[in-house]
Structure formats: C-alpha cells, structure tokens
C-alpha cells in the first residue's frame, strides 16, 4: 500500500510540474558568438514572413557575391523564438517583427542601435513609420510595411438605401443610423473586442498614442483625450446598436460579411486581400474611400506594420544593414515586397507602379491610391511602450466587458491605464504621470 501511494505521489508530482517544464524551455543561455570574421563572403541569416522573400533574397545573392543571405521563412509562433534565440546568441542577423514589439526588446538589450548607420534614412520613409522606430532619439529598426487605413464599404448597400459615404466620424454615426433605419438587420460596422488594430488605428489617426517618453520615464496615454474622443464615437455606435459585436476572423464574422449585414470595414491596407479571400462572393460590390476623419482634421489611421531589426550580438552589422536598405528602399527590393502583398513604408514604395493596380474585387478601383494618400497623412505620434503586448492583452479583456455592458469605454480605458502603469512599474521602469 505504501509503495502504491508513493508511486501515485510520483505521478502527481510529474504531472503537477508540467508548467515548470514549459517554462524551462524558454530559458536562455550564453553568447556563443566570436567566430573570426574572415576575408571573403559573409553569410547573413534573415528571418521574415513576407510571401516571395525567397525571390528577393535570390536576386540579392546573385548581385552581391560578398554578402550571401540565408532566408528562413517564419510561420506560426516562430516570432516567439526570437527572444530566446537572441539571449542565447543564436539569433539571425536580420529579423522581421511587428513594430509594436520593438521597445519590449530594447529594454532587454536585444537590438542593435542603428542610429549611426541608418539615422539619416529618415526622408526615405513615411513620417509615421519613422516615428515608430525612433525612441528617445535612437533608431532601433528599419520600417518595412505599414497599415494605413481606408474605409472599405459596400457600394450596393449604400446606393440601395441612398446613404452618402461618410467622410467624418460624425457622418459615420449618422450613416449608421440611416442604414439601421432602412434595414434593422444592417449594421454599418462591427465591434470586435479582440481585434485591437481597430482601436489602435483610430487613436493613432486622432493624434494619440498608448505610450510616450518624458525625459527618463515612460508615459501612459491610453486614456488621454485622443483616446476618449475615439471612445465617444464607439460608445454611441454601441449604445445605439449601430454596430454588431462579433469577433473578427471567425466563421461568424465572415458569414456576416458575406450576408451583407456589415456595410463597412474601416481597416488597414493589408486587409483588402484577406477580404477578397474570404468574401469572394461579394466581388464588385466594394470600394475604398478615405477613412472618416475626426471632424475636419485631415489625417488617417494606421495599425502599425512590421520592421526589420538587427539583433544584438550580430557580427556583420554593416552588411546586414546594407541588405535591409536594399530590401526596404530600393526599387527592386520594394517590388518584391509589394508583389508579396504588403504595403511598403518607404516613400518610394508608395509611388511604385507595382502598387498601383486595378482591383477587380473593388470594381476596378486602384485602391492603393487611397491607402498611399493615407500613408502620408498618418500623424507621427504613435510611440509603443515595452508592455505593448500586455496592454493589448488587457485591452481585449477590458473591451470584452464593454461589449457585455459592464463597463463604458471610458471606464475600460481608465482601468487599462492603471493596469499598464502597474505593468511598467512591475518591470522596474519609471512612469511619469
């Protein structure tokens, strides 16, 4: 009997420690760099996810025998490996990552500062994308793509009910009321608590940001007047049931889009291709207009895109930077990126002929004209903080309560602010009021 109990306890212990195992897998190691830099060709490892990067790398390798790039395509959760790889000194030399995750890596000393090498590339990128890669005067990443917004709307539905396409958020609310009056099953948009990009783009459009830098301290601005103005619009939309609450990307969402009960999607430049993929039956009934503005202010939103970084400990920084420069600013590099389906952050990319094609799904409209105009109108105000992922995670939870009617947007943002402040101070960082 005693032995049985013992073996049972061992089993219990074994099963109980599962999460510990899981954690240990994330542990770091020591730096193993230090291989001698010889004469001759240098090899650079590049991790990225844009479709068609293989062809871009092949072209570079052909033209640059001295700097050979090895490409690894990131899929699924590969991004989660990056921190451990950098800490272990086994990181690639160039990595594509979300612009929002930069500061989280900076505070862990995981990125090479690029100010000396690329500090003067500013003019080659849109002001907003450049503004998001410079922290306290130091450059840490090169913008790759961004997500300027446009209003994708159902031309047939707006025409059928004789409603004008809104140009301001006030008009947007009014159009929502008109559409609902015409057809009670119809909503002008949807509210998706989990899809934080909707929120970020509007706060950004209104000249806001979640974080900022004030001297030697971070600021938390998730509930400032820029955000509260956005909250006001959404509170009205929600209270009057002008939007339906449905999580994006779910079968339920696409069913609603295909059924034509959601009349607009105000979202980033990377969304149209996904819309076409999942709502092919609605082809020809869509068009893109500039996003509604906050009463008269000529500005557009942005969800943020991706950047290229050079991890700390990289040996061949200059060669890596040269490749990043070619990929993101040269005509050939941009053509590969654009053909891969992303919306470039480089100004040269906005005028690229590969970008300006007629889209049959949107009735032959050259929709990227709208997005390219928007890209230059996005305010250069957005600064990410080191706790971006936690803030984003908390926003989902807070907005879930808004959707359930337990909190207003304003209350949710106030709670989000205290959670974000707690997360930052919990990391040992200073927060300025």
């Amino acid at each position, binding site marked *: 009997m005693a032995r049985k109990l013992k073996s*049972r*306890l061992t089993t219990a212990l074994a099963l109980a420690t599962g999460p510990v195992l899981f954690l240990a897998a994330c542990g770091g190691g020591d730096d193993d760099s230090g291989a001698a830099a010889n004469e001759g060709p240098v090899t650079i490892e590049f991790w990225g996810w844009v479709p068609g990067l293989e062809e871009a790398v092949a072209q570079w390798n052909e033209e640059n025998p001295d700097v050979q790039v090895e490409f690894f395509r990131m899929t699924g959760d590969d991004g989660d490996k990056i921190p451990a790889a950098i800490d272990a000194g086994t990181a690639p030399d160039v990595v594509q990552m979300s612009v929002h995750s930069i500061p989280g890596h900076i505070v862990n000393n995981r990125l090479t500062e690029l100010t000396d090498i690329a500090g003067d590339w500013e003019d080659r990128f849109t002001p907003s994308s450049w503004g998001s890669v410079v922290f306290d005067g130091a450059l840490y990443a090169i913008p790759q793509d961004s997500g300027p917004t446009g209003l994708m709307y159902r031309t047939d539905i707006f025409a059928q009910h004789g409603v004008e396409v809104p140009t301001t958020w006030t008009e947007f609310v009014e159009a929502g009321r008109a559409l609902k009056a015409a057809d009670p099953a119809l909503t002008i948009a949807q509210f998706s608590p989990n899809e934080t990009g909707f929120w970020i783009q509007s706060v950004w459009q209104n000249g806001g940001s979640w974080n900022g830098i004030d001297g030697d301290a971070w600021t938390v601005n998730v509930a400032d007047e820029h955000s509260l103005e956005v909250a006001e619009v959404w509170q009205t939309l929600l209270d009057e049931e002008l939007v339906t609450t449905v*999580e994006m990307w779910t079968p339920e969402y696409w069913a609603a889009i295909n059924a034509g009960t959601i009349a607009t999607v105000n979202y980033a430049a990377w969304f149209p291709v996904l819309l076409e993929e999942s709502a092919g039956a609605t082809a020809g009934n869509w068009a893109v207009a500039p996003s509604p503005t906050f009463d008269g202010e000529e500005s557009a939103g942005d969800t943020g895109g991706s950047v290229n970084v050079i991890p700390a400990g990289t040996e061949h920084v200059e060669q890596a930077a040269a490749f990043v420069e070619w990929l993101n600013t040269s005509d050939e590099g941009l053509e590969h990126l654009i053909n891969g389906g992303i919306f470039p952050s480089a100004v040269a990319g906005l005028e690229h002929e590969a970008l300006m094609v007629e889209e049959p799904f949107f009735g032959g409209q050259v929709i990227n004209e709208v997005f390219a105009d928007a890209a230059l109108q996005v305010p250069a105000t957005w600064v990410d903080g080191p706790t971006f992922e936690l803030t984003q995670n908390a926003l989902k939870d807070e907005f879930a309560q808004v959707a359930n009617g337990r909190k207003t947007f304003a209350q949710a943002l106030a709670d989000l602010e205290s959670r974000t402040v707690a997360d930052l101070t919990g990391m040992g960082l200073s927060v300025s009021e």
Partner: protein
Amino acid sequence: MSTGTSVRPAGSRRALRSGGIRWAPYVFLTPFVLLFLVFLVAPIVTALYTSFFAVERSGLGFGNANESVFVGFDNYVRALSDSGFVSSFGRVLLFGVVQVPVMLALSIALALVFDSAVVRWKRFFQLSVFIPYAVPAVVATLLWGFLYQPRVSPIVELLESLGVSANFLAPGTVLWSIANVTIWSVTGVNMIIIFAALQTVPRDMYEAARLDGAGELRMALQIKLPMVLPAIFLTTLFSIIGTLQLFNEPMTLRSITSNVTGDYTPNMSVFTATTLGGNINLGSAMAIILGLVTFGLSILVSVVSNRRRGATR
C-alpha cells in the same frame, strides 16, 4: 514485485562478474534517471531558482545592464496579489467541481453499460466514445467553437427555431462550454480505464450474486462499482490535475470570444506573464504556485482514496 525469486543458473555466469556487483539494474535505470533529471528535476530547480530573482531596470530601461538580482519572495507576493491569477484558481476549481463528477459519472455509466451483456456492436460504440480523445484539444475546441457560434452553428439555429435563444459564449456560459469540450474529449479514455478494471473482476462473483438473486443494477452498484473504486480514484486524480492545468481549450476559444480573458486559467496567467510580458521570473513563481496547489490537491485525493480503500476492505 517478485524480483528476488527469479531462478538463476548456478555458478558459471556469476563467476565472470567481478565482485558480484549487480550492474544490470543500473544500466536499465540509467535512461530513465537521466531523462528524469534533465527534463523534470533540472527544470523544476531552474524554475525555483529563477522565481527568486528579478531583472533590475530603471528609467526608460534603455541601456540598463539588465542584471538579475535576488528578490526573495517578491515574485510570489506579486503573483498572489494579482487578483486575476488568484481568481483563475477559483474558476478552474469551480470548473473541476462540476466537470469531473459529470465526466466520471458518464465514464462509469458507459463502462458499466459496455460491461453488461446488453450492448450490441460493443466494439463499435466503444471506439466511437473513445475517438474524441484522439482529436487534439485545439482541433476539438475549434470544432466545438464552430458549433457555439451564432450564424454558423446548426445547434444555435435549431434552438432558435424552437424559440430558445442560446448563447454558448456569454460570460456566464463560456466556462461550461469549455467543460463540454473537455467532457467530450476525455470521457472515452476514462471509460476505457474503468472498463479495463471491470474486466479484471472475477466472473464467478457475478454468478454467486446471481444465485443470491441480485439483478443487473444491484450487481453494478454493489459489486462492480466497489471493485473498480481504485480505477475511479485514479481517473479522478488525473482529471483534477488536468483541470488545474487547463490551457488549450480556453486559449483557443479566446480567439472566438473575448469572454475568455487572458488570465482565465492559472496556466494562461503564466503564459501572459512570460510570453506576452517577457517576465520569466514572475512566470516561474506562478508556475511553482500552480505546481504546489496541484501537488497538494493530488495528495489530498490520494489520502482520501487510500482511506476509503482501507475502510472497504
């Protein structure tokens, strides 16, 4: 085990060995011990060690040395004062209090039915009950998630046509929607364990009971159930541990509904702290706490089970 009674050929072989050291057991044990040390003991020690440290930062955190300093129980205090983390334990316990008995009752009932002679195509139905266990939790949740969503779910549609408005993903119901997925997934495997235990019950006991005039129901309740009690306790133990470690199902359902929060279960809190927050130290402390709670509950179940078995003998 009766290792001591094995018959040994006399003399010759034994003489070849120096000093008669019995090394064979150690050779056989080595792979296990090595794996046990590397993949179980070492990670626990690492996590325990890590949980007492924190990365020191100041100001913006740019250019800091980022050195780990000893902070004692700070991470534990922080974990235990995180209301989301603490209440996630309450949530999984509530979940377990309902899910485990329901699932076990189903498993026991199915095992008894399959054990009795009344079922036709026994193998077919047994396999049908077992198959969900072979479906990965993420896939099972996606599948059920589809059935929970209005507009696309035939179940919701059917209920609505009957005048019932069902919302499987509402804040109050989503926990039980998760329970449903886990019950669907694991009932089969627990049924197999209990069914296997039933097979070991000597058949002559049934004959004796029948001669004494016991019906099928009485035999099930008074002979079969007590005989398979150890198996039931074992499945209970596994189920409780599984409940505390709930992760895949709620994490997957979170992509469908925001009513599953980021700290819905203890393991999701650990995930948030480490993967999203990048705080391995805090995550380690949370994992150790979860491990201790699970360990404590497992001991409790073991002790209760041993008492019960002592009493029934």
